[in-house]
């Protein structure tokens, strides 16, 4: 059964999506684990687990620590490396009837460029450059924390990917995320994905261990929402809003703040039906407000939009 309602279709940059609901990187396995739960026609795209040039074993245990309204993870980008990914995993994901975006990262620029060369030869719908990985450094600086390095790397990668849409995933663990966002845009990013996890620690008193990693879940939603809100004012490329979305209302807030699409992350862990819920909520919202399309409300609660509307008057 097809989706009758076309109101949720949205164009994000050059990507024509069935809906603004995107499965974020790292929280949707290889894309096929939830095939019994997910109506793939209701999602706009799947962003794969981050792939690196070589096989990464990932971090030792403990990898997970639950907090109030969230979870800290330290998975360490476990993945089989690009070669095996292309051979064994990509063919299975490609059978899914949705847009496939490949998340990539590495430890240095040379590796990233080599990886980009390999992956762009495949038939894919987009590439997401994950610059927020703490191991992705130039010298001693983590890429996502330096606007100049971000600009240079995005520019180099964009040269290789050419017409394939390039997404850049931004880290909130910076003084001013809009500065990094502008650098990525200047470097040639087509779309911004934000935010990645927020650095945090958990304390296991029983085992007397510290778990250092990235916090996700409802606890970080206000942080992500602010980042999208502030960035939307400054950039002219589309944004995928990610961070703590666990309901249709959360998704709506991100869209109203300026996101063209939203990413579902760890919210799906406890609620495998989250995609359906968000879809129904947004569909309902559009009907109730007599809107033609979801894109009519992108940034509606953002001062930038309000200002534009004022000028028009």
């Amino acid at each position, binding site marked *: 059964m097809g989706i009758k309602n076309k109101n949720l279709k949205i164009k994000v940059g050059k990507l024509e999506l069935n809906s603004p609901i995107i499965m974020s990187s790292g929280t949707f396995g290889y894309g096929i684990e939830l095939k019994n739960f997910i109506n793939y026609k209701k999602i706009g795209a799947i962003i794969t687990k981050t792939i690196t040039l070589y096989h990464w074993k990932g971090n030792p245990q403990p990898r997970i620590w639950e907090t109030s309204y969230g*979870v800290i993870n330290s998975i360490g980008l476990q993945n089989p490396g690009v070669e095996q990914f292309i051979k064994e995993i990509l063919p299975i994901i490609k059978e899914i009837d949705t847009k496939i975006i490949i998340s990539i990262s590495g430890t240095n620029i040379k590796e990233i460029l080599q990886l980009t060369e390999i992956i762009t030869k495949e038939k894919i719908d987009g590439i997401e450059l994950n610059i927020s990985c703490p191991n992705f450094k130039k010298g001693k600086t983590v890429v996502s924390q330096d606007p100049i390095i971000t600009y240079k790397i995005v520019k180099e990668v964009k040269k290789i990917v050419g017409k394939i849409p390039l997404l850049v995933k931004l880290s909130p663990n910076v003084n001013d995320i809009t500065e990094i966002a502008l650098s990525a845009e200047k470097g040639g990013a087509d779309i911004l994905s934000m935010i990645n996890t927020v650095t945090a620690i958990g304390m296991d008193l029983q085992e007397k261990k510290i778990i250092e990693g990235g916090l996700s879940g409802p606890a970080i939603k206000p942080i992500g929402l602010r980042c999208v809100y502030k960035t939307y004012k400054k950039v002219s490329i589309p944004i995928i809003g990610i961070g703590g979305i666990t309901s249709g209302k959360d998704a709506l807030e991100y869209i109203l703040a300026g996101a063209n699409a939203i990413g579902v992350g760890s919210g799906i862990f406890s609620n495998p039906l989250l995609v359906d819920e968000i879809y129904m909520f947004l569909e309902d919202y559009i009907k109730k407000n007599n809107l033609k399309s979801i894109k009519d409300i992108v940034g509606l609660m953002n001062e930038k939009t309000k200002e534009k509307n004022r000028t028009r008057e």
Partner: protein
Amino acid sequence: MEIRKVKIQRKIKLVENHYWMEISNNFSSNIFPGQFLNIKIDDLFLRRPFSIAEVDKKHIGILFKVKGEGTKILSETKSGEILDVVGPLGNCFPFQTKWQNFYLIGGGTGIAPLLFFCKMLIEKNIKFTLFYGARTKKLLFTNLLPKGNYYTIFSTDDGSYGYKGDIINILRMKLEERGNPDIICAGGPISMLKELSRISTEYKIPSYVSVENKMACGMGLCFGCVIKIKNKNKWEYKRVCKEGPIFQIDKIIWE
């Protein structure tokens, strides 16, 4: 894998901190011994995984011990309440018709998936021996054992019931006395599983164990629950929730 609202039909406090809970079986999937359920707990972000200890057409039974916040909240639920449950998840204990003699070994609440396995073997009329150990008599829930014609061997650390000592040492003794079974399936604390790993190698008995770990998603999405599994002469992290929770014991690298 399904997501269902189920009713708590019965909840019994076995002893302090240990509970037996029966929920309505609203699942249409076949459920196999070794698989688990992921239960939504009020006020917590992540679900909690529980081995399936009993299944019939009307209900599913789980056995749990209060260890942290999740199990504490679950222990405070009452009959009649509704739970949001994902399952059945994970793989199951292996079963081959050529195996005619099983040894099942349960330590503490690790007995849970084996209770279900016992029932299956009874129904299939297959010969097996259940080894079941706990710290002390009151923690040995013999009343939960399915009725049927099979051998049982019990032990307690303090000798208050059955043999005195660790159930794994009793297993060693029985192997010396009676020779090898075709296969061993077990669940219990890490220390017990590690010792079983040595015995399995020493006596060359194929053995499968149910592994427990903290999980975030339980569905193979996050790679949070991994353990080290041998692959040729290397190893890689495998998901307990997806490639497990049942692993061949000689593939596991214990940490």
